[in-house]
């Protein structure tokens, strides 16, 4: 939401749309990108430095933002929207059976650093490299349906799939797995490509001092419209508070700020606050295969003991909305009628007594090294005490590392990130993830079957129905107590910057400032 907020807050200012719905207004004003000599200084996403710019091995932080301006894709997201627009392709057609995509590249697209013109060979190389199981890319599943990319001539080719893959046009092609690298550069630079990448986007890789500064420069031979800022300087400022201080004193132009600081920035007329809903789910889970939480009545008792609204106030400063189900409101398949459970301590105690725990029990509540999670568990711990459950808190560095393999007993509070396509959200609740990410060890055959069917369904409404049913299954079995989908807050100075985001990713190529 690109909107200026003054002192009044809640609920009027709270924008609710995943994909920044102020798009119309924005397009209506001025999207003419006037090139300037200015430098845009921003904090890296989560303050973490990039690790590698090889699209097959991103770690998921600032890499995504840089990827979007460094590499071209066949199609990309329009500014502040999830609408697809053509990028390197001048045409892109999906066959009627949904298994072949035919594309034709624009002619004359130049790679950075003199690596020549982009051809269909580069597309083939880029996609097949990620798909190739020998390369061990963690993103291979995005191209799991890929048979091959067939080159027709210098500029055209066909992406051939063995089955319908629903997320193809919402995720595989427009997101990082669709980045087109220069085959010549990759072969030339070898393992150095990861830190000296070559793309064909509006900015090229100028310099990188690890943990200090990444500099991207405007690419003069870019085939599209020239972006506004000449230079993008990305600073990995790890501590969010230091980032806020840096923003306050003018060392950086934009940054993500903590949920707690929203109030302060809303009171500042010179600052514009953007609230972006994140693609995440925060939730309380149980080890459903170990006592006492193998009994659904115990899980239900916890559901009636936990006051989600209190957690949101205490830990999240009431900034993000409450979530009653897994999928965020604007994702295909969102279960709009999911019940919003309210605390009912009497019922909770009854359920515990029925399950054979009239006096409660002791258990563990595990969470990871994220402040907002730790505050949430502190609140939940106190809420559970009211029905006699004595939960001691254990902090792990990452949920996966410590409890993934062993199957952690007790309860867990964490958040998982997701993508625009709904399929990915459901990945981790399947039976075959037990022993990997499914540390809550919940297994439901109907769920698994629906998950596979949905992935092969192209028709959106049918697909959505499957996903709603899957969310109901989780709800019926009390496999999860959802709290929120979270929010990210970005700030910038009024009149100095006009940023664009897709989901929670910064689209620097569309960011503009005052024309000089």
């Amino acid at each position, binding site marked *: 939401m690109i909107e200026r907020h003054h002192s009044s807050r809640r609920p009027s200012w709270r924008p609710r749309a995943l994909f920044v719905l102020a798009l119309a207004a924005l397009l209506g004003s001025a999207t003419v990108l006037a090139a300037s000599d200015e430098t845009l200084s921003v904090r890296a996403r989560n303050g973490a430095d990039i*690790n590698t710019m090889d699209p097959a091995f991103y770690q998921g932080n600032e890499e995504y933002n840089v990827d979007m301006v460094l590499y071209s894709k066949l199609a990309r997201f329009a500014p502040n929207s999830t609408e697809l627009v053509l990028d390197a392709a001048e045409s892109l057609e999906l066959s009627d059976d949904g298994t072949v995509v035919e594309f034709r590249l624009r002619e004359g697209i130049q790679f950075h650093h003199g690596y020549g013109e982009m051809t269909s060979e580069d597309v083939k190389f880029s996609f097949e490299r990620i798909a190739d199981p020998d390369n061990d890319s963690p993103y291979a599943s995005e191209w799991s349906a890929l048979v091959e990319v067939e080159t027709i001539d210098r500029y055209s080719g066909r992406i051939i799939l063995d089955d319908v893959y629903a997320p193809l046009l919402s995720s595989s092609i427009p997101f990082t797995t669709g980045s087109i690298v220069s085959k010549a550069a990759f072969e030339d630079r070898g393992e150095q490509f990861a830190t000296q990448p070559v793309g064909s986007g509006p900015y090229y890789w100028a310099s990188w*001092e690890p943990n200090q500064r990444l500099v991207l420069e405007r690419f003069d031979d870019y085939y599209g419209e020239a972006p506004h800022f000449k230079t993008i300087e990305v600073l990995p400022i790890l501590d969010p508070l230091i980032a806020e*201080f840096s923003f306050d004193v003018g060392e950086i132009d934009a940054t993500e700020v903590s949920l707690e600081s929203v109030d302060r920035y809303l009171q500042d007329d010179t600052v514009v606050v953007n609230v972006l809903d994140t693609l995440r789910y925060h939730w309380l889970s149980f080890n459903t295969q170990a006592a006492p939480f193998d009994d659904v009545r115990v899980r239900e008792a916890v559901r009636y003991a936990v006051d989600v609204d209190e957690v949101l106030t205490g830990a999240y400063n009431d900034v993000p909305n409450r979530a009653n189900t897994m999928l965020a409101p604007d994702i295909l398949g969102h279960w709009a009628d999911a019940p919003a459970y309210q605390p009912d301590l009497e019922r909770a105690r009854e359920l515990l007594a029925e399950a054979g725990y009239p006096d409660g029990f002791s258990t563990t509540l595990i969470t990871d090294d994220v402040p907002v999670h730790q505050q949430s568990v502190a609140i939940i711990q106190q809420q559970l005490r009211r029905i006699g459950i004595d939960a001691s808190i254990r902090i792990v560095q990452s949920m996966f590392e410590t409890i993934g393999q062993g199957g952690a007993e007790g309860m867990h509070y964490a958040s998982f990130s997701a993508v625009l396509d709904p399929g990915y959200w459901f990945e981790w609740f399947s039976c075959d993830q037990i022993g990997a990410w499914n540390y809550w060890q919940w297994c439901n055959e109907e769920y698994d079957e629906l998950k596979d069917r949905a992935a092969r369904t192209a028709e959106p409404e049918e697909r959505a129905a499957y996903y709603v049913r899957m969310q109901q299954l989780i709800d019926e079995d009390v496999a999860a107590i959802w709290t929120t989908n979270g929010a990210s807050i970005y700030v910038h100075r009024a009149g100095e910057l006009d940023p664009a985001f897709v989901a929670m990713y910064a689209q620097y190529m569309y960011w503009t400032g005052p024309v000089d």
Partner: protein
Amino acid sequence: MIVYTVRRLLTAVATVIGAVTLLFLIIRLIPGDPAVVMLGPRASPSMIASMRERMMLDESVHVQLLAFLGNVLRGDLGRDVLNELPVLGMVLDVLPFTIVLAFGSIVLAVLIGVPLGTLAAAYRNSWLDRVTAFVSVAFITVPPFVAGLLLLLLFAVELRWLPVSGGGVRGDVLNQARHLILPMLALALTWVGYIARLIRSSVLEEITKDHVRTATSKGLSPGRVLFKHVLRGALIPTIAVLGVGFGNLLGGAVLIEIIFNRPGLGFLIFNAIESRNYPVVQGGLVVAVFLYTLANVIADVSYGFVDPRIREA
């Protein structure tokens, strides 16, 4: 003197070898395949295979250790798990920041601490002495990271005299100096306290010595006596402490580097721990150990130069 220096160097080499061995053992004591430990959660079968080969895990442990030591000696500290950058290069990139910070803090501490201590000794038991004593202890006991926070809030955020974060623009010395001031001050405070107290007590000890009394009785001016005879002797114990201090600061500045988002050895290792990049952690620690030991050798040897008794000990 040469014998002493050589002997001290040999102990230092033994220390470094011991520390590197210890590091090697720690990695292997962690449960699980050491290659998987090094690679962290992102380990894929082919990465594990090449890491196993690199760490020579199929060989016996002493062969692995020798190979590891050999690599360290040749300056090969391994490669970043994610992007294959050599760890030594990454360390050398940020090392100047840490050395400048540690060195600057020590120099600043000497510049403030020595006059303060001398003054306290000269006017001992006056109100000045007591204020100095109190200030010194206060400086020693306020943890540097707390001092850093308060300095940052006051001078960078509220008054905006100095920058908040980073190490400054490469090549712009003035800019880098401005970024240095607050972290340097935060680290120096503790040492100002230490040095002031140390100097005070050694000045008081020196002035009772014969050569100082003789100099005074010969009618030398008090200033001359102080600088030529008293301070010269009083500085000797300070040198040893400075060596330890400099060594400690190389690895110990990590909290300050985190708070000021300042590049440096500690911050590099901290970041690598956060992203589970163990080759960088391991390589960074090797360098930290090496520098600490080196700083101590230099301190001991220079101490030996000024105070011959040490050599015989």
